[in-house]
């Protein structure tokens, strides 16, 4: 038994070492850095000067950061509702026994295997383009005037819509795996009892998918807080307030931007800590909301 314990210890060592070096250390350093005035992210601790809550005061007093938080919240709520609802709808449809299930599943998931850069370029250049984009072609076909989908008023929603398109397939697969895990006997029994498809969905599928939905919400929260590439694609060269999100604000703070050489790694670290706390809070709230509702089958 003693020998087995030693063996377990030695086998765990590489993983533990990796975890400490690559995860625990950077996290601790980032948290610590957020309380110091630090210019360069790689500056030695000797170059740090204690700043208390100064970095936090700075970011929460910043118009750009607050705009970025507002944008992130909108993506989380609006994007989340649409993405998760559409994913659920498609998962239920695909698993309902329709013909061509494999084709639809692959087609809906396809945006996930295409590079996000290519996907964003497609939306910007072929769907939203003012002169020959698909949307304005449709608008003109019905006699309307061309719309500036990427103007300051609509750019945020154009970006969010594109992001939703690229995300639905992923959550659909999660839901499909959840639905396929529900025993068919339950549906058969419900059918014999006279329950329609809607009733089966609301009284069997939804309650039994609560665990999967909890996971989806957590994943969506992580996706939203790490939202980066779509903003870069929709506002190239310089960041714009209509598309800024906290990670972009952090990135600009830590690395500067075009023609900007001032950096503030301390403020960047504070943004990182705030985002982590948000994810933890969302996770805990979700846990509470779904607490005690786990059903076994």
């Amino acid at each position: 038994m003693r020998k087995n314990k030693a063996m377990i210890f030695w086998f765990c060592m590489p993983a533990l070492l990796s975890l400490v070096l690559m995860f625990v250390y950077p996290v601790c350093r980032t948290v610590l850095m957020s309380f110091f005035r630090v210019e360069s992210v790689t500056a030695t601790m000797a170059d740090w000067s204690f700043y208390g809550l100064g970095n936090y005061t700075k970011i929460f007093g910043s118009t750009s950061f607050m705009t970025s938080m507002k944008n992130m919240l909108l993506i989380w709520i609006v994007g989340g509702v649409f993405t998760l609802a559409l994913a659920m709808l498609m998962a239920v449809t695909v698993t309902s026994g329709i013909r061509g299930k494999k084709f639809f599943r692959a087609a809906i998931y396809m945006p996930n295997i295409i590079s996000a850069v290519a996907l964003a370029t497609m939306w910007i250049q072929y769907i939203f383009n003012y002169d020959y984009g698909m949307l304005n072609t449709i608008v003109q076909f019905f006699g309307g005037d061309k719309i500036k989908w990427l103007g300051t008023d609509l750019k945020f929603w154009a970006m969010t819509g594109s992001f939703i398109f690229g995300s639905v397939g992923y959550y659909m697969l999660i839901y499909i795996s959840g639905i396929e895990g529900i025993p068919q006997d339950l549906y058969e029994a419900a059918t014999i009892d006279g329950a329609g498809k809607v009733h089966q969905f609301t009284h069997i599928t939804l309650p039994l998918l609560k665990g999967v939905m909890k996971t989806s919400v957590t994943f969506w929260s992580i996706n939203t807080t790490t939202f980066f590439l779509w903003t870069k694609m929709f506002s190239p060269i310089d960041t714009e307030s209509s598309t800024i999100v906290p990670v972009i604000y952090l990135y600009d703070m830590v690395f500067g931007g075009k023609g900007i050489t001032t950096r503030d790694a301390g403020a960047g670290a504070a943004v990182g800590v705030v985002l982590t706390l948000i994810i933890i809070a969302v996770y805990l709230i979700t846990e509470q909301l779904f607490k005690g509702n786990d059903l076994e089958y």
Partner: protein
Amino acid sequence: MKMKKTLSLLLASALSLSLLAGCGGGNGGQSTGGSQPSGGSTSQGAPSGSGKQYDGVTLTMWSMWSSGEPQANVIEEAAAAFEAQTGAKVNIEFKGRDVNKVLTASLESKEKIDIIEDDYQRIANTYPNILDLTDMAKAVNYDSWSYACLNNQVIEWVGHLNSIVEQPQVGGVFYDKDAFSKAGITAEPKTWAEFLTVCQQLKDAGIAPIAQDSAYCNFAFYHQLVRYLGEDKVTELDMNGGWSGTKAEQAAQDIIDLIGKGYFVDGAPDEFPASENKIGFGQAAMIVCANYVTAEVNMQTGTEVNWGLFTYPAVDGGVDNASAYGGANSLAVTSYSENAQAAFDFIIFLTTGEFDQKMADTAAQIPADSRNKAPAALNGTVETLLAADKPMSWCAGINANADLKDTIKSMCVELFEGKYATGADFCKALDALY
């Protein structure tokens, strides 16, 4: 049992070693230059016995380009020629545009790098451990062929010359000469009044005068602000507010008037690069941008626009009616390089004569060596840079306030979208941010 214990220890060690091996050597870029280890910067190899100046010297260069790009190809070619001539081998690691994200850390830790390539402003203001090149530059009479305005700017930032220009950039109004000819325009406008006349002539000839992408709205408006106020005043207003009642109102009003007169091409401000491409499609004639717009438009539209360039027009009562945007991708030597002279010689080899001309021709760039010839699409750029005294920065004045720069950028786009009735309204909205 002993055997089992030994085996488990061996397995654990192997796992640890493979993990560490995976973590190590993370240079992240593509390395060329033979089978030399990427970390081997200035290692002194065995002399080949050919008696060349730098026999056995190995240099490491971190490039901002990606392997396969025209610029990267020229650098590789130059490195091969330099090795043949001097015996020094140059290992080039193509890190791509994001080289700036890793350079600071690498230079702070004195990673074995001899030459870096990046934006000259970042080299001047951000990176540690960069060598003072003043004496070396003097020894080769660098001033005689380089651009004084860019060198002076570096000296103003750092106190000495710490980089050598590789790919200079210049901004202004780039235009289609054929469109000007079609509209009967024979002279480039020098003042705002002349510019408006040119716009009207183009419009009368059925050509939209100005293309404008939203990505460059702040850059275009910055020109107008700098003409009226100068960069220092713009920076001051950007930091503290107080735009209302200044000439910024007139600057904004000028843009609003351009919109009112219908001088922007349909769809402007459009999403980059849709509007600039309209010059390639013959739908628009002018754009305020930097020189790379010419190569972008030619490549994206598959045309060869007959490009011209004129300095942004002077305005009535302006305090800075002459400056033009100037910038550069430059090369620098690390202060801890063991072969600094060889590194400097390679830089000069690359940025002068044959290889500089090749860089200008294949990558459609302004030559770093002013004795070379700019490609046809960049006619006039060498002269503009040589004539400039001090370059205008890339929106530094309206990017100075880190908390507001994103909002101000969006407001600049709104200005070009026609969301403000008057210049005073625009300035009032700006002041409301403070």
